[in-house]
């Protein structure tokens, strides 16, 4: 696993909101199943002393850090406060920060991510579903029931499309090591390159499914940066130019970042690219045949 395991204590920022409360419940149900620590503290300014599903809430991240051993944080605060939350956690010394929040202005994300980089924190997201290492830890909102433990890592800019791939793999008997949703915004903290370099050092991960979409060229950069066996899928072949396809970052701009040229570049570098999600399990099996 990467970014954390069952011994990682997780903090939730925005603990008393509807989303925060709901997902603390689900994350801790998962932690209980896995025998892990799960969410140990919550933060909502002005709500110190409250409890959410038995988890104590503090006013600041620093207060929570005084009382708990915290290795990672998950953010559910509204868009206007999310960049500040990232910086507060980074400043307090948390090194893995998962930002679920959507619709954060890019100028705010750029500043928060630049600040986190200076103090040595890794930001996953924003606008992401978080990550899940089956049997170990869940940080975020992924539906745990679809996952199974195994050797395939998944990195994706999407949420539900990732679950679709996980579901296909699990049904085909192919388990996952860690599944990371890196987010659908134009500016995100951990990119394909960063997550792939973690997978490269993870003995459990033998192959990686890279799920990209229109916009930018982070997929190609990632594929070029690693020697791990990869299968890829790129969403948005039918996306018209200059239209945002749901995700803020999913847009073909100035003739760049369209799916067909992405796919062509990936194939040129020897990366097999599935044209349908349902082809992915068989292509992963094929990779393992090559590797063995």
């Amino acid at each position: 696993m990467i970014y954390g395991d069952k011994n990682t204590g997780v903090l939730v920022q925005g603990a008393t909101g509807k989303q925060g409360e709901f997902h603390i419940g689900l994350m801790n149900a998962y932690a209980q199943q896995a025998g892990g620590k799960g969410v140990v503290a919550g933060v909502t300014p002005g709500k110190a002393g409250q409890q959410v599903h038995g988890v104590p809430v503090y006013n600041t991240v620093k207060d929570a850090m005084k009382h708990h051993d915290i290795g990672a944080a998950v953010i559910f605060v509204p868009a206007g406060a999310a960049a500040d939350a990232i910086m507060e956690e980074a400043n307090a010394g948390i090194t893995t920060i998962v930002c679920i929040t959507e619709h954060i202005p890019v100028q705010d994300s750029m500043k928060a991510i630049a600040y986190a980089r200076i103090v040595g924190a890794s930001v996953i997201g924003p606008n992401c579903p978080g990550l899940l290492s089956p049997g170990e830890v869940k940080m975020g909102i992924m539906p745990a029931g679809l996952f199974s433990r195994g050797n395939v890592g998944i990195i994706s800019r999407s949420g539900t499309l990732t679950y679709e791939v996980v579901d296909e793999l699990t049904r085909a008997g192919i388990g996952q090591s860690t599944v990371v949703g890196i987010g659908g915004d134009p500016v995100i903290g951990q990119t394909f390159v960063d997550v792939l370099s973690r997978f490269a050092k993870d003995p459990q991960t033998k192959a990686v499914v890279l799920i990209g979409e229109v916009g930018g060229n982070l997929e190609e950069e990632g594929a070029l940066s690693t020697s791990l066996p990869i299968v890829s899928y790129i969403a948005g072949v039918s996306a018209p130019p200059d239209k945002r396809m749901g995700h803020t970052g999913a847009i073909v701009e100035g003739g760049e970042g369209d799916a067909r040229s992405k796919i062509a570049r990936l194939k040129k570098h020897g990366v097999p690219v599935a044209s349908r999600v349902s082809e992915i399990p068989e292509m992963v099996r094929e990779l393992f045949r090559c590797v063995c």
Partner: protein
Amino acid sequence: MKLREYEAKNAIKAAGIPVPAGFLIRTADELITHLDELGDAFVLKAQVDVGGRGKAGGILMAGRTDGITVAKDLFGKQIKGLPVTEILAEQKLDIRHEYYLSITVDRSNKQPLILFTEAGGVEIEITAKEHPELIRKVVANPLMRDLPPFMIRELIGTAPKEIGPIINRLYRIFIDKDALLAEINPLVTTPNGVFAADAKIIVDDNALGRQGFTINRDLSEREREAGKHGFSYVELDGAIGVIGNGAGLTMATLDLIEFYGGKAANFLDVGGGAESERVMNAVRLVASVPAVKVIVVNLLGGITKCDEVAKGIIAAGISQKVIVRLAGTNEAEGRRLLSEKGYEMLDTMDLVVKKAVEVTS
């Protein structure tokens, strides 16, 4: 959202970057009061929200004698289907040299990227392809409010020094206006100094509220209506309506339609955790497009519960055929509700899409 030229120019002028004397007019007669300031030759530019307006006849030269006639002519035109309601009348500059300056968001570096070339006057895409070495680039740290002087020196090379402060002012505009792109093309030298002859600013859709915009003009009315419900919605030109949860899964559904030889009419992402009323609104919205003959619903329930989805589809009560794929939380109950009412359900996204393409072809 792309600002209109006069909005971008106003922002640039307010930041201290010289722009040609210009006036926004809404009728041809309004031009009369500005003729003295505009001088003998000036440019009339239609303020329409489309690209490539120059080639579409939206930019016309005019003079003191024919100005009103030319303006009347332009007000009567449609530029790429859009009526001309506003014209920017602008002084013609005595251009000596053209430069290109832009600031964008660099996804790979996660920082602002500033591009400058002394080889202006040619389309930047062509320069980028044929002479990439002529485009100078620096990546700025977004935590800094101003560009350090060395970065500006690296950018301008042998270009006039007056350009230095302009680069920094544009950088501040980029930050303050929540821009995804701030561009001056061309930035020109004239006997009277340096001017931004044309300017383009794209504001981050996620920052429109704090930038004082109440609507996103880049969206169609139906797209805006969808936004009010919290849906992501894009209009396309086929006959298959598409509803999914999550942008990636919905996009993959569209791609699959193309894979099987069909064409999608639209893209609607209901988002996570949709309850029956939201689903009902989504189905009705997609069905309200006249071209839609059949609707594909592809939902993978995590936070979203399949029984809620089923209730929403049934409540929508639309006339078009709906083909459904539901998987995940409360799947059995969702399927039971739909099959009671005779809806067609299939197990995988491949199957629902194939079926929809068959129905429409």
